[in-house]
């Protein structure tokens, strides 16, 4: 009845058309991976342009308006086109069904639709960039965003559409995890990555619609002068900030929770140990997803909100730090006396833990109103969120890319080169962003193309770090592209991992499994290994 099974999802139909019409979650994941990598590259080019402009005081390569557009495009691309979809849409799509023993997601057609929505939204936003580009920053603060003459509208519409892609992805994961787990796979046996994606999905479906409506209101304000956020017309710009951060603070957890999932998997795999306090990791995931909705006011300490409000938002923010600390402790507990394999995903994992810890501690300091007023809107905020968002999301993304590359492609990559690139990237990050903390503390404001000469040495250091980073990324792109064709054949489980996704072939066949896999033990249980003594 059915045609002979193809060897793998990669060889099941080789035409472009077979990819564009596929319902296979793995192909959809791979498509998202390609798209997000592309936008990571674009956003990276913008970043380099910014850093070059800041190399010297005064005009270096572009004027002020160009600079404002450039940092807006950088932020919009990185946040909405790369960080939010990267891990859930690319790796989540590929891995969640494999990890829960399902043959696909619950709604394969919606899944494909989310790819097309993403492409549509990204194209509209990109078109806006070439039509002049917005100069509002990725936060679109009103009333500036409703009055500036630049091309804000296409960017707003683009982001709005991408939001729907996110919602569909989240909805799909929630239904998939609830209803398609293989027989015997109970909730408390779910791999930690699945838990992380599940928590993220909840935030996505609850927060994104609010963002959509806010963006629509700003768009309307530009088109018909609705006046909702414009004090000149009786509106209130602070309402924008409330609604925006109601989405965008949880959105930072949309970027960080999936990373935490990746890290949990990598920590177990490369220390060959069961997760230390699996339940605590799960509960803290849900805790972060929940508390994240009550912290938005810490972005508005300087807006004149009430002292009580600021105090309450500050306290709630610190609660998030506690949940995060729980995770860091349990990863350290997992690594402790594990039989550690120093492979590139683990190097990124260590980098992740350092950045998350350091950036998170600074976050706690920011949640203190007095310190916040000193640092607000300076470069140290830039450094804080890059430490957290880039240091965490990008580190985890790279860890995921390396850890699951053999799963997705069936090939291995040169390990020594990968380790070298990982070290280079971690040092690049530190060199780029530590000077920015110092700059901010000295009073350098964010979003300025120009600065007095005495800031120059720190800016030069930061730009030098950014070049190291660029170098590292080029190296990665080079050896991974090479490995796609020439890498050693991986075999089903090259890392010897106990993660559930490695039970299928690498690369997996179209429907993942021919019979439902069985789950006698929980995930990451290296019970039979010689490392038992360490547990």
């Amino acid at each position: 009845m059915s045609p002979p099974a193809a060897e793998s999802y990669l060889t099941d139909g080789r035409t472009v058309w077979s990819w564009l019409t596929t319902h296979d979650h793995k192909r959809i994941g791979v498509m998202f991976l390609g798209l997000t990598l592309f936008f990571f590259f674009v956003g990276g080019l913008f970043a380099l342009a910014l850093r070059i402009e800041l190399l010297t005081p005064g005009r270096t390569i572009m004027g002020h308006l160009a600079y404002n557009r450039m940092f807006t495009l950088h932020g919009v691309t990185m946040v909405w086109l790369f960080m939010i979809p990267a891990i859930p849409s690319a790796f989540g799509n590929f891995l969640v069904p494999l990890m829960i023993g399902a043959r696909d997601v619950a709604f394969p057609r919606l899944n494909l639709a989310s790819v097309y929505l993403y492409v549509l939204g990204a194209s509209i936003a990109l078109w806006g960039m070439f039509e002049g580009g917005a100069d509002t920053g990725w936060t679109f603060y009103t009333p500036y965003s409703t009055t500036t003459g630049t091309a804000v509208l296409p960017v707003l519409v683009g982001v709005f559409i991408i939001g729907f892609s996110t919602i569909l992805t989240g909805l799909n994961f929630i239904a998939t995890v609830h209803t398609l787990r293989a027989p015997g796979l109970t909730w408390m046996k779910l791999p930690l990555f699945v838990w992380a994606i599940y928590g993220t999905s909840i935030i996505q479906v609850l927060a994104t619609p609010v963002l959509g409506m806010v963006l629509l209101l700003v768009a309307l304000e530009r088109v018909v002068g609705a006046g909702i956020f414009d004090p000149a017309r009786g509106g209130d710009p602070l309402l924008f900030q409330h609604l925006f951060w109601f989405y965008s603070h949880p959105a930072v957890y949309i970027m960080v929770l999936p990373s935490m999932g990746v890290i949990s998997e990598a920590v177990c795999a490369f220390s060959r140990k069961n997760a230390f306090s699996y339940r605590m990791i799960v509960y803290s995931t849900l805790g972060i997803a929940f508390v994240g909705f009550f912290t938005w006011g810490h972005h508005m300490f300087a807006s004149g909100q009430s002292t009580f409000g600021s105090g309450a938002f500050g306290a709630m923010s610190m609660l998030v730090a506690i949940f995060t600390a729980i995770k860091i402790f349990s990863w350290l507990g997992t690594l402790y006396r594990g039989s550690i394999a120093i492979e590139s995903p683990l190097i990124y994992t260590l980098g992740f833990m350092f950045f998350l810890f350091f950036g998170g501690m600074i976050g706690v300091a920011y949640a203190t109103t007095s310190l916040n007023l000193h640092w607000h809107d300076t470069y140290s905020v830039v450094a804080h969120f890059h430490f957290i968002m880039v240091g965490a999301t990008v580190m985890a993304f790279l860890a995921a890319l390396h850890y699951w590359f053999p799963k997705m492609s069936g090939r291995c990559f040169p390990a020594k080169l990968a380790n070298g690139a990982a070290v280079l990237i971690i040092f690049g990050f530190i060199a780029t962003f530590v000077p920015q903390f110092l700059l901010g503390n000295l009073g350098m404001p964010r979003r300025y193309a120009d600065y007095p000469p005495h800031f120059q040495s720190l800016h030069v250091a930061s730009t030098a770090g950014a070049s190291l980073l660029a170098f590292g990324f080029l190296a990665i792109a080079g050896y991974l592209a090479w490995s796609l064709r020439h890498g050693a054949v991986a075999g089903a489980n090259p890392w010897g991992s106990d993660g559930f996704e490695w039970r299928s072939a690498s690369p997996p066949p179209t429907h993942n499994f021919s019979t439902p896999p069985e789950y006698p033990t929980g995930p990451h249980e290296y019970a039979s290994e010689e490392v038992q003594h360490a547990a």
Partner: protein
Amino acid sequence: MPPEAVTEHWGSEGARRQAAYLGMWVFIATEVLLFAGLFTAYGVYRSVYPEVFRAAQLTMDVGLGTLNTFLLVTSSIVVALAVHAVREDRPGLGGALLLAAALLGVVFLGVKGVEYAHHVREGGLPGDAYRFTEVPRVGASLFFTLYYLLTGFHALHVTVGVSVLTVLGVRSASGTFGSAYATPVELGGMYWHLVDVIWLFVYPILYLS
């Protein structure tokens, strides 16, 4: 979902039904939150401009608003009956009821159009275009902006719902659904109830004071 999808998962028909239901509930949650932003804005500005908002509400046509409420609630009941009929294996009756509910939705949109025409004639327009002299501009232009957003967004949902009900009605009348396969009708019905419930919040805050 057509039966070809059945073979794609381990899940039984029951599991797939469950997935479809859960998906619909999550979708409904996102719809509610989509409106939540507008309701929040409404609440904030109502507390900033209490008198103006009350004055603006008094100029609304309560009669037409109430008629529309009646139409939607009736259609919701009709849809519930349709779902029941399909489950009882009477797809013909179910189809007829679904089409009747869709028709009520169309009438609703017609009434809404009449109201909009009134506002346009009087100058009760959003934002900068506001020309209505009975209520002072500051604040009232915000009221009208939110009025159009809430009712317009809701009307968009009604339009989608009418199309969904029509397709389901035609397919049911031709015997596609029955006690063995009623999920699409059930989900369509849930969506229509959502449209109804949202209106039950929109109506009092805009029309009654």
